[in-house]
């Protein structure tokens, strides 16, 4: 029977599965989403697959193997709209730490037979390989933002995911600033909103898992962190974590060591 419902595909590249799990974690919305779209490819959730074209593809994970570097082009060809979800897909993920090292050394540390391992020297964002229609940030993404992205797509509008900093979310929440009041180093001023200022709400500094906000002043924030006693090697690590290969964070980390 022909169906007019838009066809959804969920694709995985190098990742922890957490961002696509966010869809299954939408316990209240999942059956409604399944009613509004035809879930044509989502191997984590179903055996059935439909070949052909997809109206909306959600892509999780980074490009880290030669096989995946080719496969992403096939996914792009078959997708009308391609949305990348999460820090791996939008910035290369934590596995992009290899971009600052020698991947052959990495393989030798982990594997007895590095010659069995097919891998690329870098882990990179999907947008470095194919055209991407929208990027949803976060490690992991917010499930509320994911529902917003799917709803926006169904309504034919742009998703509302504000690109301002985590600081704004703290102010909206009425949090006391952990950096000003407690001297806790915090990446909130440079980090993209979306999590709801979680870490400061738990008396902890933001560690930047949503990546850079739209216009981050990273050198100014570094100066503030230095004033709080953060040393150079720590600064390099602070800027080089789950979004290490996002350009603004990469440039800042490179100012503090190789």
């Amino acid at each position, binding site marked *: 029977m022909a169906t007019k419902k838009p066809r959804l595909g969920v694709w995985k590249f190098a990742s922890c599965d957490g961002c696509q*799990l966010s869809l*299954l*974690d939408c316990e209240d919305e999942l059956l409604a989403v399944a009613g509004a779209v035809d879930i044509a490819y989502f191997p984590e959730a179903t*055996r059935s697959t439909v070949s052909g074209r997809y109206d909306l593809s959600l892509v999780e994970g980074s490009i880290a193997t030669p096989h995946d570097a080719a496969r992403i082009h096939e996914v792009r060809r078959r997708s009308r709209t391609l949305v990348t979800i999460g820090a791996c897909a939008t910035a290369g993920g934590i*596995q992009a730490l*290899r971009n600052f090292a020698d991947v052959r050394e990495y393989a030798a540390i982990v594997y*007895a037979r590095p010659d069995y391992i097919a891998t690329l020297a870098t882990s990179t964002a999907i947008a470095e390989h194919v055209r991407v229609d929208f990027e949803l940030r976060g490690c992991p993404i917010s*499930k509320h933002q994911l529902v917003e992205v799917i709803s926006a797509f169904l309504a034919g509008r742009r998703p509302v995911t504000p690109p301002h900093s985590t600081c704004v979310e703290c102010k909206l929440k009425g949090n006391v600033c952990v950096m000003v009041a407690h001297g806790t180093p915090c990446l909130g001023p440079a980090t993209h909103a979306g999590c709801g200022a979680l870490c400061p709400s738990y008396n902890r500094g933001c560690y930047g*898992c949503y990546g850079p906000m739209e216009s981050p002043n990273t050198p100014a924030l570094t100066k503030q962190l230095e004033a709080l006693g953060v040393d150079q090697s720590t600064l390099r*690590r602070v800027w080089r974590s789950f979004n290490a290969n996002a350009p603004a964070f990469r440039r800042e980390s490179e100012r503090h060591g190789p």
Partner: protein
Amino acid sequence: MARRTIKVDYLARVEGEGGLKVVVRDGMVQSAELSIFEPPRFFEAFLRGRSFAEAPDITARICGICPVAYQMSCVYAMEDALGIRVGGALRDLRRLLYCGEWIESHCLHVYMLHAPDFLGYDGAIDMAREHGDAVRRGLELKKIGNEILALLGGREIHPINVRVGGFYRVPHRRELAPLAERLKWARQAALDTVRWVAGFEFPDRTRDYNFVALRHPDEYPFNEGHIVSSQGLDIAARDYDDHFEEHHVARSTALHSRLRGAGNYLVGPLARYNLNFERLSPLAQQAAREAGLAPSCRNPYRSIIVRAVEMVYACDEALRIIDAYQEPESPAVPLTPRAGFGFGATEAPRGLLYHRYRLNADGIIAEARIVPPTSQNQGSIEEDLASYIGDFLDLPDEALQHRCEQTVRNYDPCISCAAHFLRLDMDRG
């Protein structure tokens, strides 16, 4: 039937990417190989040079389904290296967090990944059309597990509130009260789940497994205890490397584990249950008995019932912890970096998860080693396929392929973890 070939390029309803190859000659299964083509991410390499304090957040990213397990094995290993012990309410809160992850992860597997195999659907969304009440119950139960994670951990996936030494912020008693009301509903839903899955049809297949799990003197194991086996192993986590070994095969980006001198073994709910039945809460024991499970169960297809029984236990245990909870004076115990080795083994939803670290004097990681449950189960999964599938060779290709997949899904394999799974390639020769 001189030659039949069945091929599954990508096994569905598992977490991660992998495939399967079964070779049949003259009506006998000659070999069964699991291949894992999950891209390697090299966690043990890039952990070198990071601070001990960063490791719980970094290792959580190995798995989006069981991040708490990685955080727990990590913090216990780091605390071992730093010579501190976390007790009292902080220890209880860690168990409570783990209850949330067991409920969320087991519920995902029981309802969304495994039950469709028994009832003949491609997935839970198809299953919902005829089993809507069951699927809605599963989603609500899963949500309550996630509510524990969100309250204690800040969010469901990659919680932000766990640190070496304890937490960043501990909840007030009054914050936990609404959770207790939700958990009472969840406990009943878990009991209903046990009854529901106990009514499925199970292939009558058993093997003499060597089960491996933690065992603690007083409690069903989450974070602490000795590593024991059904063949008499009884060791501390720090002796793991003396008894277990990993080897690397070409078909897999996940290393295979073996017990030195004893070969393959099985970790996970079935192992925990067999080695710790008497430590389950009375209600969970009673639910198991009513479901027809003896204190010993060697049929891996029945692991779906064991997962449901463990959900009853997790709800019971969470309610006990909330009832006894007194807010600790400090959210974490103080610590000072020092050089040394640290070892940690905890019970992830899928089984034993081992971490080992060597730290420099300034707390920087010099070496890291992580052995996830699915790596340890690869050998046992292959042995199950080799032993059980031979009896199903009369089935048509499509049904046989489905049976192979179901047999693999008994283990709730998490390939993202293991490679840090699945293609079926059946060669009937």
